[in-house]
């Protein structure tokens, strides 16, 4: 959506959205806020170093630099061009709050409903532009010819009809698939569609083992609300975590930063406590914000307070049950700082792309990613397509895609898609979860391969019109595929770093693993390999306190 907004107005743009435009996906759900350097005492270099340190040095440095450098500009655009109004200090300047893992209080926000404000304003703007929206239409697969992307097959969910859209450029931004775990935070429709589409074209994915678990997902029993995020601003404001023995357990794991430590550390600490039998019956720990005062919690975090009340708990007056919850996929399609992929004509932005956040994303850097990369794609695409006349699409290829997708509708009976989806999520949680071992990963891969095989027997009921079961089948096909890339990458990385923790290799190993794991389709299945990080901006050896070397010829526009 942001790419459409930031492109030139005379472009013929079609936005294909699986749900309603601007009313779906995770950017809409952003609670905590947006990291950007706006204060004279803060610096882009500091934001950059926080991002790299947070990413444990395997970030794509050019991408990371692109994000932090453009973040202030995008904030000004959101405010001044689109009319977003972020919260102000008493004196009327934009308020910036603390967020975990940051050297400066630089998170811009609007209460705890930041994403609604951003997405509503982008949508409002696009409503008045000559942009075609295809809503409740899902992109199914890319169309390619002679090694170029030439369009996509999409499915209008309302009518059940397929459509071929040809284009001089395709921007994938479907938001990844952190939904592959049984406890997860994202919007329900996300299912790694973009990553799966790119994978099927033979494009490399990177850092797929790097799945971020948010430490505080609400546990509410058998409801879709389980897993929903209690945002970490509340830990920034001073909330505490306890186990069932009333110990503030972060004292043991991160005595200095305590609950303000980065997500990976807090998630693992909670997980260890739960595993050691010091968790609640539902398998959680306790988040306590009551000492901050009922009124303060209600006023500062109104959305979250309401959510806990809806499930019979109350953040402002009680400890609430939380568990690590799958939140954000750092891994994704390999791109350059202008969102380009190895496939001419194909651009990838947002969570579908990998690299910017390395092994761990800082809170507040996700929406920077979706808007800054959206902006990059919006600005670069017009240049790239000028004069480009891609070959026409191959109708046989489109036909094959449609055949594959419609097959389960024609089966008289077979496996149940919802049962299979549950199984996938459980396998991921248990075998490819917060704490991993080689043995568990191998077993997990076996189970995933089997699930993918059983997908071939799934039968879907009903007509083609607004068929959620059919939609679930398509989701699962992509999720199971991408889940396998996650498990294989996790098995390949024999060390622990950031979000990826191997009990059998508990140490970080900089001699071997200042590298990114890549995975790609080949003739016999999946191929995994590693590539050393290119230290284009900063070398770990050069970091001495606050001294940073950032070369200045790396602005996205220069390339």
């Amino acid at each position, binding site marked *: 959506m942001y790419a459409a907004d930031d492109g030139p107005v005379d472009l013929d743009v079609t936005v294909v959205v699986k749900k*309603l435009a601007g009313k779906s996906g995770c950017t809409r759900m952003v609670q905590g806020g947006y990291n950007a350097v706006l204060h004279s005492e803060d610096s882009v270099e500091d934001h950059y170093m926080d991002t790299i340190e947070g990413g444990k040095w395997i970030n794509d440095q050019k991408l990371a630099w692109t994000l932090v450098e453009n973040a202030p500009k995008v904030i000004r655009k959101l405010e001044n061009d689109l009319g977003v109004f972020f919260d102000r200090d008493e004196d009327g300047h934009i308020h910036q709050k603390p967020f975990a893992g940051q050297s400066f209080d630089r998170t811009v926000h609007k209460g705890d409903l930041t994403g609604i404000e951003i997405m509503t304003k982008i949508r409002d703007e696009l409503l008045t532009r000559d942009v075609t929206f295809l809503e409740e239409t899902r992109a199914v697969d890319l169309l390619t010819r002679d090694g170029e992307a030439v369009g996509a097959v999409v499915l209008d969910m309302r009518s059940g009809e397929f459509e071929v859209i040809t284009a001089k450029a395709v921007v994938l931004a479907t938001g990844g698939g952190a939904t592959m775990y049984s406890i997860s935070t994202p919007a329900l429709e996300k299912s790694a569609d973009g990553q799966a589409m790119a994978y099927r074209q033979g494009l490399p994915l990177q850092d797929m083992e790097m799945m971020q678990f948010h430490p505080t997902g609400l546990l509410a029993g058998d409801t879709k609300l389980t897993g929903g995020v209690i945002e970490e601003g509340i830990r920034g404001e001073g909330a505490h975590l306890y186990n069932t023995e009333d110990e503030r357990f972060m004292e043991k794991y991160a005595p200095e930063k305590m609950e303000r430590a980065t997500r990976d550390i807090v998630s693992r600490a909670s997980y260890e406590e739960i595993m050691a039998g010091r968790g609640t019956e539902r398998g959680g720990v306790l988040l306590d914000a009551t000492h901050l005062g009922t009124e303060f919690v209600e006023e500062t975090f109104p959305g979250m307070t309401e959510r806990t009340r809806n499930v019979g708990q109350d953040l402002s007056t009680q400890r609430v049950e939380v568990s690590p919850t799958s939140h954000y996929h750092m891994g994704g399609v390999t791109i350059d700082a202008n969102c380009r992929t190895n496939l001419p004509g194909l651009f990838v932005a947002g969570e579908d792309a990998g690299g910017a956040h390395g092994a761990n994303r800082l809170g507040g850097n996700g929406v920077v990613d979706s808007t800054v990369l959206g902006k990059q794609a919006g600005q670069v695409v017009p240049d790239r397509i000028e004069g480009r006349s891609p070959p026409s699409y191959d109708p046989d290829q489109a036909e094959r895609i449609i055949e594959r997708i419609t097959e389960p509708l024609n089966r008289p009976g077979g496996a149940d898609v919802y049962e299979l989806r549950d199984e996938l999520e459980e396998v991921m949680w248990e075998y490819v979860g917060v704490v991993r071992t080689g043995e568990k990963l191998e077993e997990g891969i076996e189970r995933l391969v089997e699930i993918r095989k059983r997908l071939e027997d799934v039968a879907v009921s009903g007509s083609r019109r607004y*068929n959620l079961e059919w939609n679930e089948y398509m989701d699962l096909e992509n999720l199971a595929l991408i889940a396998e890339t996650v498990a294989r990458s996790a098995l390949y990385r024999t060390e622990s770093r950031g979000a990826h923790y191997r009990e059998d290799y508990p140490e970080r190993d900089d001699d071997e693993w200042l590298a990114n794991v890549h995975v790609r389709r080949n003739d016999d299945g999946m191929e995994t390999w590693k590539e050393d990080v290119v230290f284009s901006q900063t070398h770990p050896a050069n970091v001495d306190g606050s001294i940073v070397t950032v070369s200045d010829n790396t602005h996205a526009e220069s390339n």
Partner: protein
Amino acid sequence: MNEREFTVHRYDPKVDTEPRFESYDVPISASTSVLDGLFHIQETLGENLSMRFSCRQGVCGSCCMEINGKARLACQTPVTGLNDRKVTVRPLYNLPVIKDLVVDMDPFFESFEAIDPSFVAEGLDENSDPAVIPPDSREREVIEPRTDCVGCGACYSSCSVAGDTYLGPAAINKALTLLKDSREMKTDERFERLSETDGVQGCHVQGECSNTCPKDIPVSEGIQLLKRDAIKRGIKQRLFPSD
């Protein structure tokens, strides 16, 4: 286990001559939302129901439907919080049904388009610092409670006049947030648009929008505020035409 009977609107306009209601037994606990109940019907009872959702957190506004006679967000409506023992669910009023519980929101969003929701500020761009406006300023006090709108359509469904002859509450609420924003420039055009017959005067002050809004936005009060503003402007323009 505790159970509730869910009675659900089923209708495929392409096939069925008229809608029907079907009942299902759904197990519930203290944390079961109406959306969870519908998922149970969908996933466990294998009914392949059509409904709309995304965030399940009350932020996308997709899952709004008429639940026991009131438009609510299904994901934010705990079943045990409903007074009745039965749960009856049907799609929003005033909008065409696509299938079962899913409505076509286009007429609702066209009313947003009508008030031209795009923001235009003079003298502010990507190179200028955001405006300095204290949070306790009069304008922010009016705007702030009104920007929580999730575009769910509950107010539109509850309004007896929304449709061709009236833009409806949410679009006017949006216009108000823009009109009161000192950064925004299109004040005259917007007032003119709102003065047309389907604008603020179309409102019959029944207040159902405010009563229904799941985000507790004082929608109706805002519309009355704009009516007064429009009258004041009219008088001013007659007395001081060049102003």
